[in-house]
């Protein structure tokens, strides 16, 4: 697989706090790359810096050997780097179709064409039953789908998903994972940020762990999960939990 996105020595700090110290990573064509790490480790800053929300203080981002470092957000989207937001951000006053049409207009000037393309994406993401529903009236699960659907309509090369499954129950989460796989199969490379490890393990080809704005580990999901450094970072410098005796757990279910 050839490298699609190559990030080298990315740096970003806010008022003296180094959110990203020196992060380098590659995303291969067709890959789903998991990006994990404790809250505040710099995952969202990474996405925001690549997506153009923040200008990096240093480092480079190459998309298919084109330098896209520090481009503003719309330009990144036009180059084929799409993202979703940690908290779902549909255009609340618009219907699902109108939402997706805005995204589809990136590739055409004709609203009718864009609408047709939008309808395809909507069908693909399982939102057909609420095409004309105002997105403010959608439940969380549908909003998450709408996020993915809008991103899909952009026909991106790279899609960065910032906790796109947050707030979903296990069944919905499984459906969400299927949807991400589907998008990936259309030829979109994915950077996948998620806290729920089960989802990361199930979905990602490769995982990168960030901690304190630095790359902590990298490898297959299974290998990373077993990594002593990673366990320590997640458990806050101690391994209390691992040392507790392996009693069976008669916790009360409600």
């Amino acid at each position, binding site marked *: 697989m050839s490298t699609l996105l190559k990030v080298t020595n990315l740096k970003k700090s806010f008022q003296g*706090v180094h959110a990203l110290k020196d992060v380098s990573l590659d995303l291969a064509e067709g890959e789903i790359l998991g990006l994990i790490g*404790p*809250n*505040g480790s710099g995952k969202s800053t990474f996405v925001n810096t690549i997506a153009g929300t923040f200008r990096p203080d240093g480092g480079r981002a190459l998309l298919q050997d084109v330098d896209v470092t520090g481009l503003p957000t719309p330009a990144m989207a036009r180059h084929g780097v799409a993202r979703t937001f940690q908290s779902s951000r549909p255009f609340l006053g618009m219907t699902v179709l109108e939402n997706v049409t805005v995204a589809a207009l990136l590739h055409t000037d004709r609203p009718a064409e864009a609408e047709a393309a939008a309808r395809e994406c909507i069908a693909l993401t399982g939102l057909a039953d609420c095409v004309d529903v105002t997105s*403010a*009236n959608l*439940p*969380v699960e549908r909003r998450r789908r709408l996020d993915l659907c809008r991103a899909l309509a952009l026909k991106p090369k790279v899609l960065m998903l910032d*906790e796109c499954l*947050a*707030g*979903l*129950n*296990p069944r*919905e989460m499984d459906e969400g994972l299927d949807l991400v796989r589907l998008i990936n199969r259309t030829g979109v490379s994915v950077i996948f940020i998620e*806290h*729920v*490890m*089960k989802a*990361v*393990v199930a979905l990602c080809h490769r995982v990168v762990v960030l901690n*304190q704005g630095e790359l902590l580990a990298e490898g297959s999901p299974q290998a990373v*999960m077993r990594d002593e450094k990673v*366990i*320590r*970072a*997640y*458990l*806050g*410098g*101690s*391994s*209390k*939990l*691992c040392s*507790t*005796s*392996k*009693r*069976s*757990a*008669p*916790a*009360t*279910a*409600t």
Partner: protein
Amino acid sequence: MLDVKAISAGYGDMKVLDCVSLTVESGEAVSLVGSNGAGKTTLLRAISGLVPVWSGSIVFDGQDLGALPAHKLPALGIAHIPQGRGVLTQLTVKDNLLLGGYVPAARERRPETMKMVYDLFPVLREKESQLGGSLSGGQQQMLAIARALMSHPKLLILDEPSLGLAPIMVEAVFEIIKTISGQGVSLLLVEQNLAEALAVSTRAYVLETGRVVLHGASDELANNEHVRTAYLGI
């Protein structure tokens, strides 16, 4: 002491909490765990009156909180440290602390409380005339806790106190939380650092998509298969 009965709540049309019940006894430390977006923060905010409760009731110390505006709750003895610490960055450390004791009952005892708090956090005394925003993340968390203590709370609500802190700072913060808990203040804690959370608390609730799916003694939950696979990836 705190009795949350079957509450539902959310933002706009979006339901985030679905019939959640929870109790915190006097002097008890309870933690609330679950993945991002499960509704933990919303639950804390609903208790503090920052999010309107659609149905169900919240009773604190025998008083129904439903009818009270949010700013009346601190006077009852509820202190809530929000996610991101809520330090007033444009105010000095001292002004932050003075406002911690803004409620009338605490205001009378402010000088002595201030001394007590400074003894607990000597670094704050050193920096008392600096702006809150100039402190490091760890110091800001100390300030947030110190400010909460200024009101002599009966119940301390903490939302992700370890967020964005270096591991060594996390340890320190949890040491302090343990100390406070040891002094008889009830705790309700949301924390993604599961190990620390379960270590300081006696009981815990697991929240998933706005519902309590598990609850029990902290050490039992720590070994629960579901918790371990879902939240720790072990």
